[in-house]
């Protein structure tokens, strides 16, 4: 507690304004008395310290790195916010997907009609693009961040990208979570709690490594993917009408051809009541002359934004027409889920 105080002193003899606050000459307030003056008591260094403190207050802004669940609320005010759950094992291509989307936005390479509008995580995108915000050594974080601070290392949270689609304003909150969280969900139902935000998400993108899906371990990946779908449906009980994308990454390395084993994964999703949209994606193409950078990225986002199925890759409407014409699950107050 500071000892700094203000008091009046008077040059008139016998005036007690300093102790009583009452002017000897009967002025309504001491300020109105010509003999009175205000002095500040207390240590000079204390006064200086208070001044410094006031100057230091200023204003602090969002960290710019990633958003925790509390931070997300500042995005959701003012426009409709689409929460997108991005899932996939380590090295499946989740971060590349996020960065490819950002790169297209930052270089004005989004499809016609789309423009960058705002982002509260610009530095987060930049740091990830330069591999300066990696998951550090030691145990991975086990929970979604509530609130991020400047000193934090990479934490499970959301990246924000506000875009304009013609006259429409769209805010995307894309989850950025360790691949191990997806693997843990497959292996242990008890880890499902941290994925509960998916129940209120506007879309889910499951990223599968295209190269792995044609490799020696392809059937292992098929089994994992099918188990993941079961977890989503049975354990997390995601709404079956949620826009659901199976994103085959690194498609430039597999000649943009759907891996043969994908049919089994799609069939499994359909049997669970989901309406999967398969998209072949090359976030960063190794052959940009043949397969442009970013192929499939906006398709995935657009599928979630529109909440409808499109036909270029697969026509599942014929199988379950009654389930596809619903709007995206509304974003509700995220904090209530925690």
């Amino acid at each position: 507690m500071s000892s700094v105080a203000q008091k009046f002193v008077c040059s008139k003899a016998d005036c007690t304004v300093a102790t009583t606050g009452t002017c000897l000459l009967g002025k309504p307030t001491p300020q109105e008395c010509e003999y009175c003056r205000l002095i500040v008591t207390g240590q000079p260094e204390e006064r200086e310290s208070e001044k410094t403190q006031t100057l230091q207050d200023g204003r602090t802004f969002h960290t710019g790195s990633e958003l925790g669940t509390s931070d997300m609320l500042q995005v959701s005010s003012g426009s409709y916010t689409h929460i997108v759950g991005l899932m996939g094992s380590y090295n499946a291509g989740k971060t590349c997907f996020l960065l490819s989307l950002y790169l297209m936005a930052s270089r004005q390479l989004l499809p016609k009609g789309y423009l960058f509008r705002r982002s509260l995580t610009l530095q987060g995108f930049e740091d990830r693009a330069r591999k300066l915000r990696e998951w550090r050594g030691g145990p991975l974080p086990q929970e979604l961040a509530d609130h991020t601070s400047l000193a934090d290392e990479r934490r499970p949270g959301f990246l924000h990208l506000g875009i304009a689609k013609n006259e429409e304003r769209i805010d995307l909150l894309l989850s950025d979570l360790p691949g191990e969280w997806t693997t843990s969900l497959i292996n242990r139902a008890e880890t499902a709690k941290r994925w509960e935000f998916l129940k209120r998400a506007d879309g889910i993108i499951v990223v599968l490594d295209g190269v792995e899906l044609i490799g020696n371990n392809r059937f292992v990946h098929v089994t994992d993917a099918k188990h993941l779908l079961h977890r989503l449906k049975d354990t997390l009980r995601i709404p079956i009408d949620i826009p659901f994308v199976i994103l085959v990454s690194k498609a430039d390395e597999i000649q943009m051809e759907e891996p043969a084993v994908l049919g089994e994964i799609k069939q499994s999703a359909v049997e669970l009541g989901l309406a999967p949209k398969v998209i072949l994606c090359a976030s960063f193409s190794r052959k940009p002359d043949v397969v442009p950078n970013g192929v499939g990225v906006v398709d995935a986002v657009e599928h979630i934004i529109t909440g409808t199925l499109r036909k270029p890759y697969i026509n599942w409407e014929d199988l379950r027409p009654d389930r596809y014409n619903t709007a995206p699950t509304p974003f509700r107050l995220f904090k209530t889920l925690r």
Partner: protein
Amino acid sequence: MSNRAVLLIGGPETGKSNFLFRAWTHIDSSNGLVEKDGLPPDVEYLQSGAECQLRGEFAGHTSQEVQMISNIPIRLRSDFHKKALLVVPDIDGEQINRIYHARKWSYDWESLITESTAYLFFVRVNSPQTIAPLDWIACHKLYCGTPAPTPAADRQASESAKIVEKKVETPTQVVLVDWLQFILKAVHDKHPQAVRPRVGIVVTAWDCVAIDFQGGPSEWVKENMPLLHQFCITNEEVFEFSFFGTSIFSGDPINDLEFKEEISQKDPRKLGYIRHSSDNRESDDFTIPIAWALDW
């Protein structure tokens, strides 16, 4: 004194000071849209910069130690009742980047952001201090250049290396967009009612633009800082934007000795120009961006 103000904001070596000195020459001699409304409290800084330009030279980089503040009382020459303050914060350009990274500004800065403040942001053509936007090639090298290590090996490597903090600069367009988002947040927190600040983007050293470049300042920003340009287009409901190009001498007396010799025979006050994106016409009145910012 009116509480209307124009704030000049620019990173290191963006031409902010040279614009100010050149504008001051017009303001001081009352031959532009805007003139002085009395002498500023500290005129030495302005005069020494202006004198530099009158000798046909660019004014030097503002020293970090000598942080001058310029509060120039101004008024519209055709209507003396329209008054404002031209404010150049007492900071060096580097502080723009420091505030960006610290995500925090001081009380002094906060007090400059009012509902009556307009802003002129400066970027410079071919500035070595301008950090280019990310590109596909850089990301490709980082993410596709070598096979990704296994999680365990990756963690081990990163732990042992402790990832030395690299000094990687953030692209200029990202810094500027976040600065505009900072301002928007501050303005709307303090004034929830509709306030739509005016923001001018001033592209300095316009004479350095490639000869075959056909567009104006807006097109230049679109080509070189596409994130910033998109932000300007999609945030028209919260900011009012305009683009300007400026050249102090219509050439470069530092790197072009022939030009230096040429302008030594001329009146420097009659050199240089302002180009406004609204009509892409040139004018020799350097107070035009200030007048626009104040809606005069």
